[in-house]
């Protein structure tokens, strides 16, 4: 076993010559796990095995502490008062924005807009950029593997504008058919909205290539980064995308806070999203002058503690050695795929070559909900159902699936507990 560390901050360190719980030797998994207090919980008398991080990740102590500290010591409304606490709160809130800018390698800090989550980020773009740039007979292109949140806002926009929603196909393994996607980008395509990592298939999409194809034909690209942000290094400048959306709660931060990254020149010309305080420079009953981005898109008092928590989550991720983290997550993923493939009657869904942190499966003659209930009694938490991707379920020809999803704190032992739980499932349904 790894030596006991008392420091609760998650600084990944090199542990030489031993593997700790599992996985590559240079990732101190025991230490990372100690940073997540909830992992010490028991469920139905069994130690919690949390394999539902794609739904929401657990929170490290540092995030919990940062939010608590803000509420205990720094809370006041931002951008308003001249008093001491107002200044502290504004610094904390804007400090979080600067951390997110670094995290995404955005060129400018004002390219980071705080929103409630990925869903709101996509709706914001649909309702502002979409409303002014997508007209009758124009087209918006999405893919067959999108989450409902990257389908429905575009459907609503297309319906309103008389535009057409088109869908790029995927292979049976769950990979984008790039040649088909390219053919679907035409002169009428105003926007391509694509997920970076599929929440069902785990597929990592070749965003740079999609961006090049779209830009060559004058279309803008929005990337749904909800599942990518906790696992991949995201560099919006290298990706070249126009918009990037993410949720705090999937990357070790709290719920109710997320980010829309938008390229400066696009945010500048976009109309505001909602009207209210903070998004204005001056208001009279005759005319209102809007604030500059990001304020223009942040009407009302924002989720300040949430932003502070997200900032702490970014710090937490930055404190982990990213190559070691990637290697660890890949190790558990590969181990999980191998172990599940050997379970009798189990079929893996989503077998793309490049995958991140999601293993979806179906079991012969056992519905995913029954799998979920039985695993729960073993302390194993997985997601079951359609994963907010009903069109993808139809494409795959399954009404629902079971999904185990991983995070930095996941281990090979978690996978072992899952496999052993699946044995119990077979026992019940034998």
């Amino acid at each position, binding site marked *: 076993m790894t030596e006991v560390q008392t420091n609760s901050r998650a600084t990944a360190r090199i542990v030489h010559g031993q593997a700790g719980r599992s996985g590559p030797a240079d990732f101190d998994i025991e230490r990372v796990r100690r940073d997540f207090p909830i992992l010490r919980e028991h469920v139905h008398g069994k130690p919690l095995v949390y394999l539902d991080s794609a739904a929401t990740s657990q929170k490290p102590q540092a995030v919990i502490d940062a939010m608590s500290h803000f509420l205990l010591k720094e809370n006041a409304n931002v951008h308003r008062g001249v008093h001491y606490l107002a200044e502290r709160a504004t610094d904390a809130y804007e400090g979080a924005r600067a951390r997110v800018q670094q995290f995404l390698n955005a060129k400018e800090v004002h390219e980071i807009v705080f929103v409630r989550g990925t869903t709101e980020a996509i709706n914001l773009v649909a309702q502002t950029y979409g409303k002014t740039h997508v007209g009758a007979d124009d087209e918006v292109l999405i893919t067959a593997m999108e989450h409902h949140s990257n389908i429905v806002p575009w459907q609503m926009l297309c319906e309103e504008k008389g535009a057409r929603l088109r869908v790029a196909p995927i292979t049976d393994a769950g990979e984008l058919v790039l040649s088909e996607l390219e053919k679907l980008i035409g002169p009428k395509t105003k926007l391509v909205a694509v997920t970076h990592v599929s929440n069902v298939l785990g597929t990592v999409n070749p965003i740079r290539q999609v961006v090049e194809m779209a830009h060559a034909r004058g279309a803008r690209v929005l990337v749904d980064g909800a599942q990518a942000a906790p696992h991949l290094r995201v560099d919006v400048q290298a990706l070249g995308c126009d918009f990037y959306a993410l949720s705090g709660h999937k990357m070790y931060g709290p719920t109710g806070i997320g980010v829309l990254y938008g390229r400066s020149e696009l945010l500048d010309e976009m109309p505001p999203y909602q009207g209210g305080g903070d998004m204005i420079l001056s208001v009279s009953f005759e005319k209102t002058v809007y604030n500059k981005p990001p304020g223009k898109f942040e009407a009302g008092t924002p989720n300040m503690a949430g932003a502070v928590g997200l900032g702490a989550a970014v710090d937490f991720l930055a404190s982990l050695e990213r190559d070691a983290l990637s290697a660890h997550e890949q190790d558990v993923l590969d181990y999980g795929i191998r172990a599940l493939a050997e379970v009798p009657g189990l079929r893996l869904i989503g077998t793309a070559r490049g995958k991140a942190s999601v293993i979806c499966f179906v079991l012969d*003659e056992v519905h995913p*909900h*029954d799998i979920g*209930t039985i695993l729960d009694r073993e302390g194993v938490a997985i997601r079951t*159902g*359609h994963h907010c991707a009903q069109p993808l379920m139809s494409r795959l020809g399954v*009404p629902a699936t079971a999904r185990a999803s991983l995070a930095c704190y996941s281990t090979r032992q978690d996978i072992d507990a899952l496999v052993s739980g699946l044995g*119990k499932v077979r026992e019940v349904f034998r």
Partner: protein
Amino acid sequence: MSAELRDLYQEVIIDHSKQPRNFRKLEGATRTAEGFNPLCGDQLTLYVKLADGVIEDIAFQGAGCAISKASASLMTAALKGKKPEEALALFGRVHILLTEGPSATVKPEDVGKLAVLSGVWEFPMRVKCATLAWHTLRSALEGTAGRISTEGEGPD
């Protein structure tokens, strides 16, 4: 296996889920209703043939978990020959059993063979699986839901 799990997945439940009774399209149905569980994607089509004021025949098709399939199967087996108001009254008792568990109000023996569903109440997340068929039945009998179709009752 825990006692709760054994109560939930009783042999009769597993049997009905693997070999659901009345699992077919019913030709000559006078009422048809479709039930969806939007949270989990369960889908069920219920066919009812009403004749002389009783449920002469009843059948279903669809995809769902063991609990929803077994519940639908047990329901169809229990309702043949019953009047619609008797069927709905039985749903009332089953609903109490599923949501509140066996009590003085509703004892397992009050619902006959459907008593095997009484383990569900310990799993609140699964109650909706067990009630899907019944809600669909109510739609079919009362004709309240938008998805109700009344094929067989029209001129053709």
